[in-house]
């Protein structure tokens, strides 16, 4: 049993545990914390896949700002009403559907074969290669990205401003 296997086991356990807690917890803020935990563990899984850039993106954007965005969304809405309707009615049916889905996915993974040889990326600095490509070959998409971010920012300001003025 290698260290990689142990790390993968712990990280996937944390990921699934966070997701399960996110569904089963009652308070919305606790759910967001559980979700952030899940996001962080997924970042650890990305590190194990030697995709540092994706891992940093996961930590900064998902664990950082998406969680903050959700917390703000919770603060801005009324959430003290937690309803408890229809639970347990279709429990058996839901279990059968989930079990069937699990069997299907498991069979699919078992019989799947991926064509071609895996890319040889362990020998080099991934982030450096991404940076080199992004600022030479993909300059135009990169600059268009900034325009997209600007448009999103201005659009959000206009929408939120109008909402605030209406009140």
């Amino acid at each position, binding site marked *: 049993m290698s*260290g*990689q296997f142990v*790390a993968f086991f712990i990280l996937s356990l944390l990921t699934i545990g966070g997701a399960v807690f996110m569904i089963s917890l009652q308070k919305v803020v606790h759910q967001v914390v559980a979700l952030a935990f899940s996001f962080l563990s997924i970042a650890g899984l990305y*590190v*194990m896949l*030697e995709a540092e*850039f994706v891992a*940093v*993106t996961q930590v*900064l*954007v998902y664990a*950082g*700002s*998406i969680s*903050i*965005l959700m917390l*703000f*969304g919770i*603060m*801005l*809405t*009324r*959430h*003290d009403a937690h309803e408890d309707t229809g639970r347990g009615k279709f429990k058996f049916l839901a279990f059968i559907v989930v079990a069937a889905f699990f069997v299907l996915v498991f069979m699919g993974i078992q019989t799947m074969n991926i064509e071609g040889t895996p890319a040889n990326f*362990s*020998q080099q*600095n991934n*982030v*450096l290669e*991404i*940076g*080199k490509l*992004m*600022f*030479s070959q993909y*300059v135009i998409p*990169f*600059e268009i*990205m*900034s*325009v997209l*971010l*600007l448009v*999103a*920012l*201005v659009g*959000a*300001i206009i929408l*939120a*401003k109008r*909402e*605030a003025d209406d*009140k």
Partner: protein
Amino acid sequence: MADLYSNNYLIVAIFFILGLALPIGALTAGRFLRPNNPIAEKRTTYESGMEPIGGSWVQFNVKYYIYALLFVVFDVETIFLYPWAVAYDQLGLFALVEMLIFVTLLVIGLIYAWKKKVLEWD
């Protein structure tokens, strides 16, 4: 190479475990050392101060959502600064100009938000 790679992250894991263990250990030690005398008054928001009215979970103004959105936009900008900073030595002046254009476009967005009085807290 792969072994060396994961060994680097062993240090990260050790720091993570230390960061988790320190507050847990300190709080557990404090729990055994401190006297325990809980009364209802100690549980109020401002002990021996103002009497709090109502719950703390109130609905906030929609305006504050813009702060979160601004944070997300500049967070995404940070993501792009990371490979740029790593590859900067091998890219030269052209990359600097590109990044300046990128940052300038986002600063225009910030100035727009400023002019629209989004950043004012009233």
